[in-house]
């Protein structure tokens, strides 16, 4: 059990900088997910914590101790790799117990602990098999058991589910979550899959191009993305982003095709006129069936196609030349090119600076999506 302090950490490969001064703390027993697109430096950061990559600048401490110059084995971390990295010539039992064997644990005790760990991940019947004779999910479990048996202070997961098929991925996700609830070990999980990240994390760290875009609980990140990047990355689908202009009296927005939306003045009391990016959650939008169009409280859109989800549909439409996705619960048999009247509540409008992409902070009024949840 340990807290991890990451302070001003940088990483250079030759002259290329891949991590630009990252700062954050992982509390004892916390499950932190580092999320980002490929090449954002998230795996590098994880590997620096593990001791598999040298730290170019800054410090990483585990349990209050700076580990920059420590060997991986002295850091008390266990790691689960993306491709499992099981030793192909060893049986499952030997794979799980190898760390203990290296540590010089006598074979009788080793066997006992291997059995115990294998039981918790449901591998007892497979202890004599070779990794090559196991399915992907079983291999993943062996990798987890191998990490667990060392009773590490910190668990590190490097995209461990990305080689599994979709169904198994959901199942393993739940198992990892359960495991964490039982073991309460500090865990760092790296992934590019935002659903995985949202469901697993106590806290999310979203990285892009070697810097941290936002740190926060999944719900906070979902409700209040700190930047356009996070907004587009989090949620399925991501936030709808439309270019707009704030009117000179700061009371309304004008879209590219001239449609206007009213801004709730209590949320944005001091908004500068000029271009902004408007963010709208697909789940916060409603298609008005029948009735009159409410100017300034709604948008006119053109229907493109509907994506079937089972629980509902994602309606893909076009507004002022930008794509817009609307989540609906029922079924909507629209024809291609049909006009849609969309209700937009002023409380659900999120604004971002059009130049920096950063969120324009509003006064604290809950959005309708979070109020419903």
């Amino acid at each position: 059990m340990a807290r991890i302090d990451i302070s001003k950490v940088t990483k250079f490969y030759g002259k290329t900088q891949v991590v630009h001064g990252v700062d954050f703390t992982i509390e004892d027993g916390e499950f932190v997910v580092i999320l980002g697109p490929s090449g954002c430096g998230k795996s590098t950061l994880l590997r620096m914590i593990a001791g598999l990559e040298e730290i170019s600048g800054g410090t990483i401490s585990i349990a209050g101790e700076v580990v920059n110059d420590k060997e991986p084995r002295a850091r008390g971390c266990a790691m689960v790799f993306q491709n499992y990295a099981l030793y192909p010539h060893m049986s499952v039992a030997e794979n799980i117990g190898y760390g203990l064997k290296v540590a010089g644990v006598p074979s009788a005790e080793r066997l006992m602990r291997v059995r115990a760990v294998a039981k918790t991940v449901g591998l007892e019947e497979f202890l004599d098999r070779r990794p090559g004779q196991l399915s992907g999910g079983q291999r993943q479990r062996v990798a987890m058991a191998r990490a667990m048996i060392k009773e590490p202070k910190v668990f590190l997961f490097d995209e461990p589910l990305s080689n599994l098929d979709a169904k198994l991925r959901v199942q393993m996700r739940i198992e990892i979550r359960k495991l964490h609830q039982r073991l309460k070990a500090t865990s760092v999980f790296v992934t590019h899959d935002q659903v995985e990240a949202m469901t697993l994390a106590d806290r999310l760290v979203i990285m892009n191009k070697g810097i941290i875009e936002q740190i926060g609980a999944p719900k906070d990140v979902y409700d209040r993305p700190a930047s356009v990047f996070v907004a587009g990355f989090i949620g399925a689908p991501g936030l709808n982003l439309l270019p707009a202009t704030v009117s000179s009296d700061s009371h309304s927005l004008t879209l590219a095709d001239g449609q206007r939306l009213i801004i709730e003045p209590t949320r944005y009391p001091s908004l500068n006129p000029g271009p902004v990016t408007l963010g709208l959650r697909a789940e916060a939008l409603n298609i008005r069936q029948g009735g009159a169009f409410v100017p300034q409280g709604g948008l006119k859109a053109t229907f493109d196609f509907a994506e079937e989800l089972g629980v509902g549909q994602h309606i893909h439409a076009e507004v002022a030349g930008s794509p817009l996705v609307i989540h609906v619960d029922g079924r909507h048999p629209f024809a291609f090119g049909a006009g849609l009247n969309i209700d937009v509540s002023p409380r659900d409008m999120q604004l971002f600076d059009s130049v920096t992409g950063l969120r324009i902070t509003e006064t604290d009024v809950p959005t309708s999506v979070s109020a419903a949840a």
Partner: protein
Amino acid sequence: MVERTPILNILTHLILIMGLIMLLVPLWIVFVASTHDFRTVNTVPMPLWPGNQMVANYTLAWQQSGFGPKMLNSFIVAIGVTAGKIAIAAISAYSIVYFNYRFRSLFFWLIFVTLMLPLEVRIVPTYAVAANVLRPYQELLDATGISTILGALAGIKITLPEWSMLNSYTGLILPLIATATGTFLYRQFYLTVPDELAEAAKMDGAGPLRFFWDVLLPLSKTNMAALGTIMFVYSWNQYLWPLLIITDIANYGTAVMQLQRIVPGPLFGEPPRWHIAMAGTLMVMTPPLLVVIFMQRWFVRGLVSTDK
């Protein structure tokens, strides 16, 4: 790839069969010759069907040529060289692939270049070193002037002791165990081992030696078998080097060296008794042949697939 080309199939088989005949006919003649008596072997043309003197010829060849102890020597040398080559190849390739140090690709290419320098090319200097192992160091000391300086300053004359490897198993084995082929084979194998395996071992707390011993070596078993097979045959068939450094033939002669003495030579005199000589040749050929037959399955796997 599946192709339906009956004419091409027949043609390729024809070429294969012709090649096989070209390879096997000489062997067949050796075998036939070893089964006839002295007179029949020397008739022209020699019969192409085995005679009835096989047992007598082989018994005589075995008894008079003293192949027993020579074969034992050959086994010691071949196994020593093979084991040494595998060890050296595995270790040097490990260093080249898994450790990051200055000039490592230069070292790899230096090793690789020695492929172009077979023993026969460097045999004189190698003999000089085998005759006095420490001589290069002595010459280095003399050439750099260290021994002169020390002699002038402290009045000490440095003379390294003489260590000769002539007429010893060490001499037969040690100069032959460096192997570029083996290093290259092992390097290629290590490159196919995923990096995560080394990292997983690191996370498990295994140091470099532990990883090498517990993970890499067991994984390279087929590779080892392939290399072992080639190298066993290679070292069993060594002729020039043993001939050069072994003068004490009674104690250190190898089986292949002994062949040279069979015909026409001190063992059986003139005129050459080809039937006995051929019997001896076939006997000397047998051990490497058996090794190849037994190791064949592993050998092919080691060269073709990475078996993971």
